[in-house]
């Protein structure tokens, strides 16, 4: 009896000591419910192995994360750290003093220097851009291309000629999916941003994103019209309604059906996770491959290089505690970057990442594009205020495709933008 009591006391004591030692907790919230979750967990495990006194608690919020973050911020209990793609929101948080300026706290020498400025704002560093995605990609099925003897286009006009050929052969050139539940519209904004970089150039793109030119500007209008011409020329599977009602995650499926119902699909690197889920046994490089969306107006890209639209997640820190900073620092390391890219075939933000190290041919190509691009810009809709980048621009694209006149659409976005950028 007494022995049991002593034993229990000892156990309780040991438990208390253990609990006291592991009191340093880092709360992380991320929005990757899919295959990224276990990969992120591996990064967490590696960190915890190196820092046994820190416990990283991961919370996954797959939907409506901005709303949840807003309420948690208002209530005063935000997560310690979160990776997220909302640069515009990040700037608002920075202005409101709700997030930590990491300048001087986190050493960014391990991050690809081209990516670091994306997290900067007003002389501070509020986001570590370490989960990059390349957006300017056209996916195709090489087997379908060889069967029809189609060649990879090097210019926009070759792309249009190829599309014409595909239509003549009775196929649909593009499969576009713009539906994304409450976030519907974003795949369309990616198209317009990519076209904008190729027809107006990066300098105008920056002005447009910062609302230094109005939405009714002819250059913005041209970008919309160029996108719209794909529909009016009949290059899109299912036409406007097909694009509007197809979920972005299913939109690449027609490339892999037998016979194929469409030949090309515009989407970022992350999309291969989707069609690998939908079809078994697809081999990267054989069943699917990528080429960059070619240039359009030579004057917009004077050096002849292909501009790159990138997106992805930056890591933002809400609470300045040593263990939180330590975890943020760890996320920038080669170890973390390698786990991420080898597990998921995602791109690496590590400064010395060598494309040839990647086994996956798609990752290798995209990584090379990321390293070699002379002009790269972050996804514009993520840089704009929420009312526009996650509101009027999204619904504007949907309205335009569904047949509302372009002038009306652009005036509506402009009216919202005048409000949104006013303070």
């Amino acid at each position, binding site marked *: 009896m007494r022995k049991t009591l002593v034993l229990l006391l000892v156990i309780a004591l040991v438990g208390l000591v253990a609990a006291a030692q592991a009191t340093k907790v880092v709360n992380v919230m991320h929005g990757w419910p899919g295959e990224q979750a276990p990969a992120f967990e591996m990064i967490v495990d590696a960190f915890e192995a190196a820092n046994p006194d820190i416990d990283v608690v991961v919370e996954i919020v797959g939907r*409506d994360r*901005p*709303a949840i973050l*807003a*309420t948690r*911020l*208002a209530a005063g209990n935000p997560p310690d750290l979160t990776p997220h793609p909302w640069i515009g929101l990040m700037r*608002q948080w920075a202005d*409101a003093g709700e997030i930590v300026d990491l300048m001087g706290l986190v050493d960014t020498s391990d991050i690809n220097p081209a990516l670091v400025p994306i997290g900067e704002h007003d002389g501070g560093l509020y986001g570590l851009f370490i989960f990059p995605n390349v957006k300017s990609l056209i996916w195709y099925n090489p087997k379908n291309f060889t069967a029809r003897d189609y060649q990879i286009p090097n210019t926009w006009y070759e792309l249009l000629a190829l599309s014409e050929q595909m239509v003549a052969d009775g196929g*649909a050139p593009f499969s576009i999916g713009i539906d994304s*539940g*409450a976030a*519907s*519209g974003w795949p369309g904004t990616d198209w317009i941003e990519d076209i904008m970089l190729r027809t107006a150039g990066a300098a105008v793109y920056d002005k447009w994103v910062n609302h230094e030119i109005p939405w009714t500007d002819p250059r913005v209008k041209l970008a919309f019209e160029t996108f719209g011409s794909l529909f009016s020329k009949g290059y899109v*599977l*299912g*036409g*406007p*309604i*097909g694009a*509007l*009602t197809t979920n972005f995650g299913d939109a690449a499926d*027609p490339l892999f*059906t037998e016979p194929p*119902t469409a030949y090309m699909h515009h989407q970022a690197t992350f999309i291969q996770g989707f069609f690998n889920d939908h079809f078994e046994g697809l081999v990267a490089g054989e069943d699917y491959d990528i080429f960059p969306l070619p240039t359009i107006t030579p004057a917009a890209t004077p050096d002849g290089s292909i501009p790159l639209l990138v997106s992805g997640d930056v890591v933002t820190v809400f609470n300045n505690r040593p263990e939180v900073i330590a975890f943020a620092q760890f996320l920038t390391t080669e170890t973390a970057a390698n786990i991420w890219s080898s597990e998921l075939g995602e791109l690496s933000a590590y400064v010395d990442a060598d494309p040839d190290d990647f086994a996956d041919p798609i990752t290798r190509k995209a990584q090379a594009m990321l390293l070699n691009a002379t002009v790269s810009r972050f996804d514009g809709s993520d840089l704009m*205020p*929420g*009312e526009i980048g*996650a*509101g009027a621009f999204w*619904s504007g694209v*949907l*309205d335009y495709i*569904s047949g509302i006149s372009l002038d009306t659409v652009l005036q*509506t976005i402009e*009216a919202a933008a005048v*409000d*949104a950028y006013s*303070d």
Partner: protein
Amino acid sequence: MSRRSSNNEKNDRTAVRGFGLAWSWAVARARPWMFVGPALVLITFFLIYPTLMTIVRSFFGRGTTLIGPSVEYVGLTNWKFVFTSNTMLTALRNNAIWTVLFTTCTVGFGLMLAVLLDRVKYEKIAKSLIFIPAAISMVGASIIWKFVYAFRPIQISQIGVLNAVVVALGGEPVGWLIKRPWVNNICLIAVGVWIWTGFCMVILSAAYKNIPRQLLEAARIDGANEWHVFRRVILPVLFPTIAVVATTMVVQVLKVFDIVFVMTNGNYGTEVIANRMYKEMFNYFNYGRASAIAVVLLLLITPFMILNIKRFTKQEGGR
């Protein structure tokens, strides 16, 4: 000694009695407040205070804080947005369409089913089937119907029931949720009707079964045909219940959110007031605008709530 003490006692007693009187008077005065108190405190904190703060907040600008240095006074700017912007005008128009079509259909179908199903043998089964959607969550129902309305390009086989039928009959698939302004709005309203008709039917059916059969028999003996019985007897007797059900439906429909949020998110001209409020608040963090929209919603719903409560107390009072 003993006398003095008894005198003292007497004095004490009088004092106690006086105090006791004051005490019982106070208790009598306080008793109602003791009963009402907790409810009053709760209502103040959870209803009156938030309502007042929402009204105040509607005159301040964007931002997620209630009051503070980061929110600035903007006067009527938010209110101007509510009553002049294209999005809000669409939302107000759509709420009007919803109110009319949804209420007429739910109450109308509910009444029809209540009266007609009373005459069939399989009444219980039929009523249960019609009532089932009421047990499905709004979001669940919306997802089910999103599949019903699903569109696939004609080259691909349809996965939506509706378009499968259209294509089987030789037609082109229709973008049910895209086609504005009527097709998509009616398709959304149909989902609401599907969910709520069962509820209306059950309540109206209970009221219908309470009508004394002699009343109907008497009318028939007097030579009224079935339509007359319905029009001149059933309808007037059921009227108070119909009014309560209808006002309940109006209150339901004015705050419609889930169906629109899940199925179109207010795109393609299907915006409604509550969905816009959600967007302003949780997507754009403009608490000022969201508050103004919330107040509009509150003002629209209040008369129907008052009507409903009046009807309710009248009915209760009659018992």
